[in-house]
Every structure is written in C-alpha cells, then in structure tokens.
C-alpha cells in the first residue's frame, strides 16, 4: 500500500491547449473518437429517456389523452431503437475505443481512419433516424418491425424507410468498428501480451466483435429486402403477394438475439475489470470468465426462435430452441459465480463504481431468471407481448447494461478526463437509481402476469392496473433525477473535481500506467508484459502470483509514465495525421441514403423525386472524393515512406 500511495501523489504535467474544432472533427485518435462516441451515446440516452418518460406519463393514468396512439407508437419504437443502437452499442464501442488500445499496450487502433469513419457514420445513421420525426413521423412499427405491418399499405409514410437506412448506416459503422477491434486486439498487442493475458474487457470486446460481424449481415440483408418491398414492390415479407412474414421474424431474430449479447458482453467485461480492482484480488477463474463469454456468444446464435414461440413453430422446433436457451444459463451462471467469488474474501472497497458493479450482478440475476422462465414455451405463450417481457428486458438492459456502464463510467472517468467524479454524489445517485429502477420496472412483472399487454397506448380504468402503472410513472421521474445528478456530477467534476493521478484506484491493467488523460501516442515506451496483471506485478513484485505454468515470472517491464505531448522522444513517434476524409465519406453515404428514401415513392411529386436523385448523386460524388483523399492520406502516412 505504502509504495502505491507514494506513487499516487505526483500528477502528470498537463498541457493546456485551447479547444480546437479541427482537432476533434478530423481526429483519428482512438481516445478522441471514443469520447465522441460516449458523448453522442449519452445525448441519445437522454433523448431515449425523455421518450420513455413521455410514455410513462401517458400510461400513468387510465384513458389518458396526453399522447395520441400514433405518437405513442412512434415513441416506443424510437425508444427501443435508440437505446439499443444509439445508446448501449455506441457506449460500449466508445469505452472500448478509449480503453482497449491502452489495455493491450497499443498506440492506436489498427485502422485509425476507419475508426473515425465508424463514429461519423454512426452519427449519420442516428441523424437519419431522428430526422424522420420532422419529415412526417418516425417509424411506429416496433423495433423488431414485424411484417406485414412494415409494408407500404400499412405504413405508408417514410418512417420505416428512414429506420431501415438509418440502421443500415449504423450497421455498416458497427461492422467496420468490429473489424477494427478484431484486428487491433489480435494484431496490435504489446510484446508479451498474449491472448491469455489480455484483460477480460478486451476479451469480451473481441468476442462481441466476432458476434457482430456474424450477426449483422443477416439483418442488413433482411432490411434491404424490406426496402425492396417498400420501394420496388418486391413482396419478400408481404403474405398477400406470396411473401412470408415469419421469414422476417427468423431473419430479424437470427440477428436480434446475438444483438442482445452484443449489448451485454462488453458490460460484463467492464464488471470483470472493476470487481477485482476494488476487491484487491485477481479475478476468480479468469479462463472460465473468458471462455464462458465465448460460450454465450456461440450459443447466442442457436436460440433466436425463442422470440417466436408465439408463431406456433411446432414441438420439435420449440423444444430445441427452449433447451438451447436454457443452456445459456450455464455460462452466465459461471460468470456470476466467478464475480461473487472474486469479491469473496477480498479487501472490498465500496466505491461508487463497485456499488454499480454489485448492482449490476444483483439486477442481472433478476433479469436472467425471468429470462429463463420465458425460455419455456408454455410460460412464454402466456407472457409473450405482455409487460412481463418488458420487465425482463429492462432488468437485463437497464439493470444490466446501464448499471454496468455507470460502473465503467465511474471507473474510467479519471483516466479519460484527469479528474475524479464526486464519490459522495455518486453513491447517492447509485442508491436513488437502484431503488427507482426497481420501482419503475419491478411492477411490470406483476402487470404482465395480470395480463397487461405491451405496446398499448392506453387502458380502461377498472382493469386493476392503475396503481402499479402510477407507481412506475413515479419511479421514472426519480430515475430521471438520478441521471440529472450524474450530469451535474460530471459537469462539476470536470471543472473542479479532484485531480486524478495515473492510477487512482490502485489497479492492475496497462491503461493506469500512462497519465490521466493519456498523451495522443499513449505509451512513450511500449511495455513488455509478462503476466495478466502487469501493473500490479510491477507495483507489488513480492505478491506476484505464479503464472499458469507454475513458475514465478519476472515482473512486467513497465514504469509509470509522466509523459506529455512535448516529452523528449514523443516527437519520434509517428501518429497518423488529421483528416476530414472519413467524415466526408460518412456524410456522403448519409446524403445518398437520405436521397434513396424518396427514390421511388409513388405518392410523391416530380420535384421530390428529382431532388432525391440529386441527393444520391451528390452522395456518390462525395464518397468517391473521400475515398480518393483517404487513399492519398494513407499513402502519406505509409510506414514504408521514410518515417523511420
């Protein structure tokens, strides 16, 4: 302890530079890109939260006329779409972007420009999705967009087209990002950082990236087919013309179920980083935690039809998908037991981050158990499309993903900003959020079993649903207040929070070696790693555990860095130059997608049709211009051309 505290006292010299738009908009630095992801996702989190509150106000009392049925439908569709695609996914990607290269001892992602392209394209997709509110109404068909409701005769506006193309853009961004993570983690590790020494957060990021590149293409194809239905009368999913509505469900959930693991696994990785640090113990059963993540990822691909028991697939299919779904409880249980065993007998420090991590475990268990009940076809047939399902996925997505993301936020905020968040305020926020989320979401179990269907915009009085609905609405307001507390905490801490040292939590992984916030090149000296806890072993050599070969290894060759942008030697490090091309490319694709939405709508007049062609043409020109510039940029930065 004493050694550690001695090291903690001095702080990194900070170079204060004035804020420059260019340095952000043209950035290829994984840390800045990570911050852009995090801030955008948080803004979308607030928007999605406001949508949720509007719905809860509507449902707080029976026969409410606060919202129209159509607006309510738009809100629940956009709430889900936002939270899944524009909040949890980019927040995971953003934190991963910031932390993963640091954790593996790299100076950036493998493809910095592709990384910038991903973040701008994600924002382009989010922009299209929200633009639809202003152009005649957002999509109102639910986030899984079941056929045939999505066909033009039932959804005549452009909302569904905006949804398809908006998600298409974020999908391309996600695939590009996932490829980047895969190559970074596999090919950019520091010397000695073997696969079996990687932090578990890195493990889960690479698992999720593989899930993503396997699952997303199916959704891309299905949504393109839906677009052909709507724009060119193709009828893939239109039963009236020989299409198949159930095919959409299979294609969607073949992507949709792996998608929920895309949402939760990185957060499980965060928890696996946070718990050992605040328990001052190594993670219990590292290999089991890592490989149970792989197992969950694999099983996630053979359970998709448990979302479809209501379609009446027949006993053999039902039996298979029910059994496979229940098997997922095993690797998930392995993880939970390992987390608990990590805390067991540890020197537990109940920091805000640790509280959120423990909150994650408890709430995720509730959501997991209700999930197992839903894996049983007879129970599912009773509960499907009821508030019981809504309760289930809010326990795993809010109680799981969001609480876990707050654990990660409090843990890594000092590294990202150089300032500590206020712990007292944070703990108060944790308790308020934990209680109010249970007040909001637990009664949904009861309402669901009492028969309240999901996706209804109002209900008659006298159904026996008034009390619980009212309590849920109250809970939402406290939940919103707890988020406001966090925003206040961030704003105040950024200005006047305690200055963070390199390693404020006495942690074990490489991101805590470098200054907070790290210089653009991350590591002045690339560390040489010899164990799973390189920083810990360097700080406390006498406690170095035997490695898995039973031999005591030499501590990793790392030292605290107090480097900054002007450190001697920093100039020698070649980093890729600023470029606007990734942003131009993303903008071009967004403009072309926007034009494509109106390319063949029979109801529209000639001017709009012409404008749509112009948009598509401009978009394509921008794409070609950007690709050309991109190639020239990358040639300028080429490692071959005299930079050594």
């Amino acid at each position, binding site marked *: 302890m004493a050694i550690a505290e001695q090291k903690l006292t001095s702080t990194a010299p900070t170079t204060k530079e004035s804020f420059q738009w260019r340095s952000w908009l043209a950035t290829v630095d994984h840390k800045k890109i990570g911050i852009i992801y995090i801030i955008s996702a948080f803004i979308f989190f607030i928007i999605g939260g406001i949508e949720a509150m509007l719905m809860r106000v509507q449902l707080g009392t029976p026969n409410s006329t606060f919202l129209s049925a159509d607006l309510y439908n738009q809100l629940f569709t956009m709430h889900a779409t936002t939270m899944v695609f524009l909040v949890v996914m980019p927040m995971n990607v953003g934190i991963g972007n910031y932390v993963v290269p640091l954790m593996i001892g790299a100076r950036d992602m*493998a493809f910095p420009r592709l990384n910038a392209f991903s973040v701008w394209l994600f924002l382009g997709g989010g922009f299209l999705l929200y633009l639809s509110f202003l152009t005649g109404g957002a999509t109102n068909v639910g986030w899984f967009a079941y056929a045939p409701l999505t066909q033009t005769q039932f959804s005549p506006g452009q909302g569904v087209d905006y949804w398809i193309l908006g998600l298409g853009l974020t999908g391309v961004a996600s695939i590009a990002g996932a490829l980047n993570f895969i190559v970074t983690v596999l090919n950019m590790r520091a010397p000695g950082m073997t696969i079996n020494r990687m932090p578990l957060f890195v493990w889960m990021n690479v698992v999720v990236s593989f899930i993503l590149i396997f699952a997303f293409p*199916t959704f891309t194809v299905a949504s393109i087919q839906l677009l052909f239905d709507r724009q060119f009368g193709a*009828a*893939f999913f239109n039963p009236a013309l020989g299409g198949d509505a159930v095919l959409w469900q299979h294609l969607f959930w073949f992507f949709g179920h792996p998608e929920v693991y895309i949402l939760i696994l990185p957060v499980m990785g965060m928890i696996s980083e946070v718990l050992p640090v605040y328990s001052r113990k190594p993670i219990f059963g590292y290999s089991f935690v890592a490989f149970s993540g792989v197992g969950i990822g694999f099983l996630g691909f053979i359970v998709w039809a448990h979302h479809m028991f209501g379609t009446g697939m027949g006993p053999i299919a039902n039996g298979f998908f029910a059994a496979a779904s229940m098997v997922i409880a095993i690797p998930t249980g392995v993880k939970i037991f390992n987390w608990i065993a990590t805390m067991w007998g540890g020197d537990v420090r109940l920091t805000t981050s640790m509280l959120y991590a423990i909150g994650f475990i408890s709430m995720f268990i509730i959501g997991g158990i209700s999930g197992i009940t839903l894996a049983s076809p007879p129970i599912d047939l009773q509960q499907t499309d009821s508030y019981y399902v809504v309760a289930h996925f809010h326990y795993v997505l809010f109680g799981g993903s969001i609480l876990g993301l707050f654990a990660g936020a409090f843990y890594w905020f000092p590294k990202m900003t150089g300032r500590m968040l206020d712990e007292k305020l944070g703990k108060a926020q944790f308790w308020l959020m934990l209680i109010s989320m249970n007040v909001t979401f637990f009664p949904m179990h009861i309402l669901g079993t009492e028969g309240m269907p999901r996706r209804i915009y109002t209900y008659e009085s006298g159904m026996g649903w008034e009390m619980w609905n009212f309590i849920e609405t109250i809970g939402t307001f406290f939940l919103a207040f707890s988020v406001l507390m966090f925003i206040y905490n961030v704003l105040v801490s950024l200005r006047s929070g305690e200055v963070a040292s390199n390693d404020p939590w006495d942690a074990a992984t490489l991101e805590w070696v470098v200054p907070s916030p790290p210089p653009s090149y991350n590591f002045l000296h690339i560390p040489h790693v010899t164990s799973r806890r390189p920083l810990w072993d360097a700080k406390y050599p006498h406690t170095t555990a035997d490695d898995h070969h039973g031999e005591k290894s030499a501590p990793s060759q790392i030292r605290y860095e107090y480097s900054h942008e002007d450190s001697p030697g920093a100039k020698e490090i070649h980093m890729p130059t600023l470029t606007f091309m990734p942003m131009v490319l993303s903008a071009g694709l967004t403009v072309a997608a926007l034009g494509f939405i109106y390319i063949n709508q029979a109801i529209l007049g000639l001017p709009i049709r012409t404008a749509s062609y112009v948009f598509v043409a401009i978009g394509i020109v921008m794409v070609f211009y950007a690709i050309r510039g991109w190639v020239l940029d990358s040639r300028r930065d080429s*490692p071959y051309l005299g930079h050594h």
Partner: protein
Amino acid sequence: MSSSAGQAHHGEAHQKPLVGSMGVDSRKLGLWAFIGSETLFFATLIVTHLIFYARTSNTLSSVGALELLDPRLGYLAIELTTVLATLLLASSLTMVLALAASKARDWKRFRIWQLATILLGASFVGGQIYEFIHLYHEGLKLAPAFEMHLSHEAHKALTALNLDPSIVRLKEAGEHATALVPSLFGVTFFVMTGFHGLHVTIGIIWLIAIYVKVSRFPESPENPMDIELGGLYWHFVDLVWVAIFTLIYLI
C-alpha cells in the same frame, strides 16, 4: 476498406513494420474477417431464394404443372450462365497471375494480367446486364409474379389441368399464350444476383484503382500487399458465384 494506417505507429517494430502481434499484416487480417462476414451476407440472400423457390416448385408440383412452368428451367439459360461462370473463374486465374507477377516485381506482366482481370470482370457484369434485360423481356421481373411465354402444346396441357387462377392464370392474345404465376422467384433471383453483381462492380473499381496506383508508383513497397488484398476480395466474389452457379442455376 481500401487503405489504412496499418501499423504506421506500431511500437518499436522497426525491423518488421508490416507484422503485428499475430505475425500477420493488419489489413489482410481485417479483409479476411470482412470476407468471413460477407459469407453470412450471401448465405442469407441464397437461403431466401431457396426457400421461395422451394415454395413455388412445391405449389406447381402439387397441381402437376412444374414440368411446364418451373421458373429455373424456364428462364435460366445454362449456356449463358456457363459463360459467365467461366469468365469469372478465368478472372480469378488472371488475378492470381497478376499477384505472382507483382511479387516477382515484373510490372509489365502485372499490368497485362491485371487488365485481363478487369476486362473479364467487366465482361461478366456486361453478361449479367444482358441476362437481366433478356429475363425482363421473357417476363421475369422484380415483381411477385412471373409471366412465362408458352408454346402451343404447353398452353394446351395447362388448360387441360383447369388450374385455380390463384396458382396459374393463363392468358391468350392471338397466337401468344402466357401463364402468370404468383411467385417470388424473380424477386429473390434479381436481388441476390444483383447484389453479387454490385460486389463485382465494386471489385472492378478496386482493381482499377490498384492498377492506376501501381502504375503511378511502381516502386512503392506496399504494392504486392495492395494487389493481394484486391485479389482476395476478387476471389471471394468468384467464390460466391461458385455457390450461386450450383445452388441457383443447376440444382
């Protein structure tokens, strides 16, 4: 995808600037993973086509009209598709020869094989456009029904079956007779092969870009890797056609 900073800044790897912790080139690893992802993209398109084709042929079989109206045998011409498959296969061969020439730093030979690849690819796309136009005139459209021209005997045989008009609707105008069959065959076929054609087109643009770049900077050390990456993508596009050729045109 065509470029990246690669390991422009990877640590103290002066000796081996190209190779990362996995011992491979980053761009090549990224491209292989992307190709892996694309297999699922095309698998989804193919399975959609197979499901709807099976449905059409089941319906037609159940009324005894499959012999006369099978859209695959009625529309897809084995001669044309064999030519297309051969063009693409030949372009794969010329591509790998271009790569071998580049590794031997024989830029003249590289340019010949690369141009040959581009031309063969362009002929494939041209052949596909011809096929699409031809099919459109034959009555196979991007619409949930196809309208097949019938011979006199076929028309007679179908009339004798006295079919439910929701399965087959016969039309006769003068000497020409057609059968209108509700089926997604045209939709799934055009979308699937169209997306493959789009991939071929992107591949051609990519190969042209490589050709231009290598011609302008023949001394750039990264040329063989640039060519190898374009080639990998090109071979994958050929690989998809290997599957489509058998699963769609022959079975």
